[in-house]
C-alpha cells in the first residue's frame, strides 16, 4: 500500500500550480518554434516571437504568463495501491487503526436499495462529517482549495472566480473553488494533473449531439466554421480539443482532456490520429492566424479524445485552448 498523506498532496500541488502559472510547457514552446519557422506572414511571425519572449520574461521577472491566471482544474488519479491518509494533520501522524475510507455502511459491492439504505448512507455521511469537524480528519477537497488560495495569494496571481454565476458575481478573492476531479486509474501511484484555463478560451466550448451517420467532411466543416467565427477570441494559435463519444456530460470532459493533452503524445488510435492531422491542416488553411490577425499558424494542434457511446448517439464536443495552455503533472 502506498500511504499518501494529504500534506504531500498539498505540497506537490503547490509546486505544480506555480510551475503552470509561470512556465509554458516545453512541448508548446517547441510547437510555437516550429510553426514560427514556417510562418510566412510577418505580423504573425512577430506575434509568435512575442509569445516566445513572454515565456522567458515570465520566468525572469516572475510574472504570470497571462494576466488571466485561469480556472484551476485539479485532476487526481488514484492508482490501485493508493491509500490517502487524511488522518491527523499536518504531520502529527500517530498510530491510528483507521483506514482511509472507513465507511461502515457502504463497503464492497453492496447494492443500495431506496429508502432504508439511503437513510443508512445519510447516517454514515453525517457520522463522517462529525468526525471531520472534531479535527480528527481533514477533508482533502478542502485542503486542495486551501492550497489553491494560498498559491494565488502568495504569488500575485489574479483571482478570477466569482461566487455565483447569475446574481452577485462577487469575486471570491482567492480563485477557489477549483474544479476537482478524482478518477480511478490502472497504474500505481497518485497522479496530480493541474490545468489552468483562461476565460476567453473557455467561452469557446460547444456540445453537439450529432447523428451517428454524420460524415467526416461534415465534422471537419463544423470545426472549421467554429474556428473561423470564434478563434480570434481564444488567443490563437489555439489548441483544438475534441471529445467524441461517451455521453453529453462526459464528452465535454473528454474535450478538455484533449486540450490539455501533451502535444508530443500522439493519439494511440491511427484513425483518430489521421483525423487530428486532417483537421489541423485545414484549420491552418483558414488564414485566421495568431490573434486572428492573419497567417498560417491558427492552431498548434488538434487533439481528439474518444470513448464508446450509446448506439443512438454521437456526442461531439469542441473546446479551444489558448496558446498559453498551462499545465503541470506529477505522480506521487
Amino acid at each position: 500500500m502506498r500511504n499518501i498523506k494529504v500534506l504531500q498532496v498539498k505540497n506537490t500541488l503547490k509546486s505544480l500550480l506555480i510551475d503552470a502559472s509561470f512556465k509554458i510547457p516545453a512541448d508548446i514552446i517547441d510547437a510555437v518554434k516550429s510553426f514560427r519557422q514556417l510562418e510566412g506572414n510577418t505580423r504573425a511571425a512577430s506575434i509568435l516571437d512575442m509569445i516566445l519572449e513572454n515565456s522567458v520574461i515570465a520566468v525572469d521577472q516572475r510574472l504570470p504568463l497571462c494576466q488571466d491566471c485561469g480556472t484551476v482544474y485539479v485532476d487526481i488519479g488514484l492508482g490501485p495501491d493508493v491509500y490517502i491518509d487524511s488522518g491527523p494533520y499536518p504531520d502529527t501522524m500517530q498510530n491510528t487503526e483507521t483506514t482511509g475510507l472507513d465507511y461502515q455502511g457502504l463497503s464492497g459491492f453492496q447494492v443500495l436499495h431506496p429508502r432504508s439504505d439511503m437513510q443508512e448512507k445519510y447516517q454514515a455521511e453525517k457520522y463522517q462529517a462529525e468526525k471531520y469537524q472534531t479535527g480528527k480528519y481533514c477533508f482533502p477537497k478542502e485542503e486542495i482549495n486551501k492550497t489553491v488560495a494560498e498559491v494565488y495569494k502568495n504569488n500575485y496571481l489574479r483571482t478570477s472566480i466569482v461566487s455565483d454565476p447569475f446574481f452577485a458575481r462577487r469575486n471570491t478573492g482567492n480563485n477557489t473553488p477549483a474544479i476537482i476531479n478524482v478518477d480511478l486509474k490502472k497504474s500505481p501511484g497518485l497522479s496530480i494533473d493541474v490545468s489552468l484555463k483562461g476565460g476567453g478560451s473557455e467561452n469557446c466550448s460547444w456540445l453537439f449531439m450529432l447523428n451517428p451517420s454524420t460524415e467526416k467532411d461534415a465534422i471537419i466543416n463544423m470545426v472549421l466554421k467554429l474556428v473561423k467565427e470564434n478563434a480570434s477570441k481564444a488567443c490563437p494559435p489555439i489548441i483544438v480539443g475534441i471529445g467524441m463519444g461517451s455521453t453529453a456530460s462526459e464528452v465535454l470532459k473528454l474535450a478538455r482532456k484533449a486540450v490539455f493533452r501533451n502535444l508530443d503524445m500522439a493519439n494511440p488510435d491511427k484513425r483518430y490520429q489521421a483525423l487530428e492531422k486532417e483537421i489541423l491542416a485545414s484549420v491552418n488553411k483558414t488564414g485566421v492566424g495568431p490573434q486572428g490577425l492573419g497567417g498560417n499558424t491558427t492552431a498548434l494542434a488538434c487533439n481528439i479524445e474518444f470513448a464508446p457511446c450509446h448506439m443512438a448517439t454521437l456526442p461531439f464536443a469542441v473546446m479551444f485552448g489558448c496558446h498559453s495552455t498551462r499545465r503541470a503533472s506529477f505522480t506521487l
Partner: protein
Amino acid sequence: MTIILNRINILFLLKTGTISEKIMESFAKTIVLKTPLKSCDIQKLKAGDIVSLSGRIFSARDAAHKKILSAIAEGIKLPVEIKGQTIFYLGPSPTPPGKASGSIGPTTSARMDEFTEPLLKEGLKAAIGKGARSEKTRVLFLKHGAVYFVACGGIGAYLAQKVEKIKPAAYKDLGPEAIYMLEVKDFPLIVAYDIHGGDIFKQK
C-alpha cells in the same frame, strides 16, 4: 531536460538580440501615439497599422462596464471621464512588490459589444481588446469616429514591461474587474477597425 534546453535556447536568442531585433524589424513602420488621442491622430490610422502607445489609459471590463452604464442611465457623474478616453478591456494580475505592474493583457472584446454604444456616445475615442467584434459594433465605431485596437493576448509578462504605473481608479470593490488607471510607454497595439471602414479581421 528538454525544458532547460528550451529555456537556454530562447535566452540565447534573446541575449544575442535575435528575437527582439526581429520583433523590432516588424515594427519598423510603427506609428507613435500619445494619449489623449486626437481626431487627427485617429484620422491617419489604417487597419493593420502597428501603433506604439504612450500615456494614460483606463481599464474596464464586464462588471465595470455594467456599473458605468447604469451610472450613465441614472445620470450620475462618472468616476472617469469617458470623453476622449482610451479604454483597455483588461483585468490585471496583482502588482508584486517592487514591480511596476502585474501581468497585463486584453480580454475578449466581443463581450463588451452590448456596452459599447453608450460609451461611444459619451465620446470614447479608442478601445483596446482582443478578437473580432459584432458587425453592429464595428459600424458603431465607424459612426462615432473611434478606433478599435487589438493587443496581443496571453503575453501578460511581456506587456507588463510596457506599463510604468497602474493603480485602481474606481469601483475598487470589483477587485480585478475594477477600473484601473495605467501609465503605459511604447505599448504595442495593432489597429483593428479604423475610421475609414478598414477591418483587420477581413483583410487576410
